[in-house]
């Protein structure tokens, strides 16, 4: 079985403006949403208390809200979690309340109302811990980007590095935008997924860039644009197959992994789709726009060692 009988000949680079336009629209949407409604930050970053309870019989959100009336937690956010038998109550950090008792008080209230309420999960994050986690999260993001930039610049060329990082920033913004638009809670595990996406998207970008570099050496004729197109087309089967296998497992995680992993797997899903797209239309196209050329990628001398391998491939067979 094969996706393409022969190396496909799609003019990706010729259509890069379409790609740029699409990305521009998505980026504007994402940034707009991020600016206007912001991220629905999870407890990990804002601090506060979250109580997840399960009931034996389905329960209405309104009923739970009513149970909290008259307490300090009237304004608590209440929502179903996974099924109609489970609810999540979330309160921001409150002044003048002993934080560690909040969860107990909420649970007592719910139990008074319905005796079948059982505690599933409590999370309490103090405001200072929340600040620390936010700080650490942002730092992790920056360092990951920096590390990648350095490695790609060292292995390839700075324009490739800029292209790769442009693609990563693009991916991150789109995931954040997606979470902002959909009003999905953004917590630590989602952050982990965003960072994993960096790894994944990069993987894709590197594979394509690797092929571009190889073609610059082998294919004597043709413009930079042509060579890039060729590289993308040659690695297209691999790109699609890998995306598919990864999507299969992430899909399983999303559908079966349960509510706790929903945000995580959703972020990965979006990440893989935009990551695959961006390695073609953002990474390659940006380095092309930055004017990468054959001379820039002549490899250092030591790489000459594996050249003899290429004799089996007559240049005429690929055009």
């Amino acid at each position: 079985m094969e996706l393409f009988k022969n190396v496909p000949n799609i003019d990706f680079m010729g259509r890069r403006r379409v790609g740029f336009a699409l990305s521009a629209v998505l980026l504007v949407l994402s940034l707009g949403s991020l600016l206007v409604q912001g991220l629905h930050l999870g407890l990990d970053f804002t601090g506060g208390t979250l109580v997840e309870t399960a009931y034996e019989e389905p329960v209405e959100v309104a009923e739970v809200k009513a149970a909290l009336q008259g307490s300090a937690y009237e304004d608590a956010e209440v929502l179903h979690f996974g099924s109609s038998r489970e609810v999540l109550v979330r309160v921001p950090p409150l002044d003048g309340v002993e934080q560690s008792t909040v969860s107990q008080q909420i649970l007592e209230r719910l139990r008074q109302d319905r005796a079948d309420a059982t505690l599933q999960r409590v999370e309490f994050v103090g405001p200072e811990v929340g600040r620390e986690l936010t700080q650490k999260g942002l730092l992790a993001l920056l360092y990951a980007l920096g590390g990648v930039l350095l490695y790609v610049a060292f292995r390839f060329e700075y324009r490739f590095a800029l292209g790769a990082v442009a693609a990563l920033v693009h991916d991150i913004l789109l995931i954040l935008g997606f979470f902002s638009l959909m009003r999905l809670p953004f917590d630590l595990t989602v952050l982990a997924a965003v960072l994993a996406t960096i790894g994944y998207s990069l993987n894709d970008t590197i594979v394509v860039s690797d092929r571009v570099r190889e073609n610059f050496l082998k294919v004597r004729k043709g413009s930079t644009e042509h060579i890039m197109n060729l590289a993308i087309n040659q690695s297209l089967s691999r790109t699609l197959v890998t995306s598919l296998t990864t999507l299969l497992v992430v899909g399983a995680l999303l559908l079966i992994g349960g509510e706790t992993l929903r945000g995580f797997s959703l972020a990965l899903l979006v990440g893989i789709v935009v990551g695959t797209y961006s390695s073609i239309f953002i990474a390659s196209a940006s380095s092309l726009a930055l004017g990468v050329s054959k001379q820039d990628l002549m490899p250092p001398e030591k790489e000459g060692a594996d050249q003899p391998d290429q004799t089996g491939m007559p240049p005429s067979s690929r055009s």
Partner: protein
Amino acid sequence: MNRYPLWKYLLVVAVLAVGAVYALPNLFGEDPSVVVTTDDGGYPAESTRSEVLAFLEEREIPPMAAERRDQRWVLRYGSTDRQMRASDLVDGKLGAGHSVAMTLVPSTPEWLRALGAEPMFLGLDLRGGVHFLMEVDVEALIEDTVEGYQQDIRTLLRQERIRYTALELADGAAVRVAFRTPEAREQAAAAIEEGVEGVQLRTAEEGGEPLLIAAVGEQQRREMRDRAVQQNLTTLRNRVNELGIAEPVVQRQGARRIVIQLPGIQDPARAKEIIGTTATLEFRFVDESHFPYTGGADDPPPPGSELFPRREGGYVLLERDPILSGERITDASAAIGQQSGAPEVSVRLSGAGGRIMNRATRDRVGDHMAVLFSEQVSETELVDGEPQRVTRQEQEVISVATVQEALGSNFRITGLSSQEASDLALLLRSGSLAAPIRIVEERTIGPSLGAENVQRGFWAVTIGFLLVIGFMAAYYRVFGVVANLALLANLVIIVAILSMLQATLTLPGIAGIVLTVGMAVDANVLIFQRIREELKAGTAFQTAIDAGYAKALGTIADANITTLIAALVLWIFGSGPVKGFAVTLAIGLATSMFTAIIGTRAAINLIYGGRKLTELKI
């Protein structure tokens, strides 16, 4: 061509065999068990064991197996319900002298344990439990100490007859003393440096007035913080042990935080309650007319007095009204006295505490002062044959000393052996609220949610894995099957490494494994696509295989290293769930390089290598 030297085949086989052995314990699962040890951590005596077994037999709840594990006596049960009931019964039966805990004990066979193979730990999100992050409030501690300084300095300057114009607290973190002349300030500085422990002095000028600023020195501050954290660690450990949970974690994290993890706990509210209660401490005068006490334990005490047991045995009558409670203690440490050369405990009280102590002891020099220690203890007792939790107050006198002079906010208790001194200092600190502690983070996972998470994680991995395997076999045929074997081997090796490291598997960790499964095939996809390209270009079969591997290698290395960078960053900067994810991702990437490149090549070489081929099933 395409033959590996023998050692390479052997290497692959060896890695797989070791991986399989160390991954194996995870298949055996865990039994809910009751663990019994004597209070000093020893193995229970033969008589105790047979007594307990007979008792459980009689109550129709005998264990599936009873065995020795190190110094612990393990009773295995098939279900949590039976385990809980049995635990309560045993606890009630044995009473004081033994500690009874509930835990999950891996049912790893003896021969695997002999090899040091144990299953990985399940994180709290998978087995249920409570995680607390607590912070020691150092600022409150400093404030109390500075208040004490204020009191000390005032007394000292009065004694030395040094005149000052003002003596006040500045910003709660320092004492500000104003003088009329710089000479007075110099005199005062010398006296304070000599008479007040751990103080750091700084001179200043304000409106032509010479000032002296007394603050807690940096070193003193660090020592206080460390002692306070250490103290809280000890207290919390004792309390946690009381909960009867096996394998609790009580650890210092960073400069001023403590992590507590209680896996598998059924009732988090009670855990919080017990962790939250502190022991209390009181200073009281001894009833001098009945000292030393000669009466019996049950004799009615005279009015105004109360009878308490002494730690070292015997009883002592104390006055009913306390002088001072332990909350006023800001610090207590054992040291060798500078003048006497003998062990002593130096006690520091807050400013207000010092005043009260001074007033009370002024007129009673020569009398005896006692330290009374009270603690809430909860234990299980058998009431009418049914186990019941009871909490009671346990009180004892931990020190009786003669008042040598009027005491202030800093005094010493002498006449102790060095062991007694350090014990007393520890108890004094644990009875003090000098280092208030707050919960800054809490995560509780109910046991049913934990079990659900395990199941969901397991199914997600299984189904994702099956989907990928099905696709690869259909798409790359023989090569796909080889890649699938490599994937399976990769999974086994990841689990083996996690088990060897005794790492904790969390839900995000499972997600990391799932992601690795998805990405590990990428290496093989890269290789196989290259081989297909070579074949299309008309290359001979054997050369195509070799060239495919060779050309894909650089790409695979680049791609994996960049992802490793991301995983490493996650591991360094991440906390909690992020770290768990990063660990499995990094391990998975490293092992996938081995299985996907060397492993599959070994298999392909065995299948196709060294013969004339007419077809390549790819």
